[in-house]
């Protein structure tokens, strides 16, 4: 029993050491810096104008508030979201919007799970694990793809 215990824990330590050596970088990757585009950024909308031609919107919610970004009718654009978190650090997320959908292009969060969540489009949003959402948990940011009708309903019901 004693020897087996010893052997078992010995094996665990060796496995851990090998895995550590294999994966190399175990620490959280250094925070990436979002690029400054220099251009004027798409403002967040808090209501949808009658003459707005967009068919879909990305609703971005953070602890600081919420707003809509229209999907471009053609082409693409990026929108940087900056927040100061409770611990004083700056949280930067860059959303990339195209005519079909959006994805999280950059984030200085640990883990970068939000960047791995892939693209949300009107076609795939019922088949994704997170449905229509991309969530950056450390930055408490939720971005979700809504049709125009859903966005209007959300605005009249009150966001969240």
């Amino acid at each position, binding site marked *: *029993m004693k020897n*087996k*215990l010893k052997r*078992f*824990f010995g094996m*665990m*330590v060796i*496995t*851990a050491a090998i*895995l*550590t050596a294999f*994966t190399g970088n*175990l620490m*959280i990757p250094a925070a990436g810096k979002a690029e400054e585009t220099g251009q004027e950024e798409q403002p967040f909308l808090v209501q949808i104008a009658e003459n707005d031609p967009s068919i879909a919107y990305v609703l971005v*919610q953070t602890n600081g508030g919420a707003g809509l970004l229209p999907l471009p009718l053609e082409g693409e654009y990026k929108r940087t979201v900056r927040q100061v978190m409770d*611990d004083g650090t700056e949280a930067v997320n860059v959303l990339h919007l195209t005519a079909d959908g959006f994805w999280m292009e950059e984030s200085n969060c*640990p*883990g970068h*799970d*939000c960047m*791995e*969540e*892939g693209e949300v489009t009107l076609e*795939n949003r*019922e*088949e*994704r*694990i*997170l*449905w229509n*959402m991309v*969530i950056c*948990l*450390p930055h*408490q940011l*939720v971005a979700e793809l809504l049709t125009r009708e859903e966005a209007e309903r959300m605005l009249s019901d009150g966001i*969240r």
Partner: protein
Amino acid sequence: MRKETGKIALFGLLVALALILGLIDRAVPVSALLGGFIPGIKLGLANTVLLYAVYLMDWKSCVLLMLTKVVLSGLIFGSLNAILYSLAGGTLSLTVMLAVRKKPENAALGAAVLSGAALILILRRNPRPGGQMLIIAILTGLAGITGAVLWALMKFGPLRSILGTSLAGAVAHNVGQVLVASAVLHLPRLMTTYLPPLIGAGAAVGILTGLVTERVLAALRIHPETGKGGGKDEE
């Protein structure tokens, strides 16, 4: 006196093991390897230590082990936020595992019912799932069937297994984490959207970690029912 020393040594070993396995959990980017398939998931190897502990130690030591693991790994690798998430997952899964450790068949039944409910929620939202959701629906369905079969085998058959405990613990862990996430994000919708897939994934991982733990306990010749060493191999 000797018994106490043994207990302390075992506790220390299990804490160290939990921390090492936690490091491996962080190092293996399961989510990225699966192409962001289920964001934020980990193998949960560190939680297998809690599962051994449930069968090796009394409940007070288990709680202390969980708290030590959560605080230490939070301080070493994570942030206060990370501590909050792992505390919620750890507390819920440990409570469930301690509650069912003597009756793993009930745990298997509970996990089967939860997986069934999750599958219904998934299919209600999208009756003809495709892509990722199809895989998750299949996984959740399989988890439900496995839970039900385990329950039947343990209740009416000869099977004595800790798989039920592991299954319930893994599912409870995910429920705890999503509860905190939906509270932090003020997004109660997560409970009906993200939780069902996580229940399916958790159940699948729970079965794997349960199998691992069962092999380990068998190798150490520890009898899961009594927690005493020297029993027969569980082959």
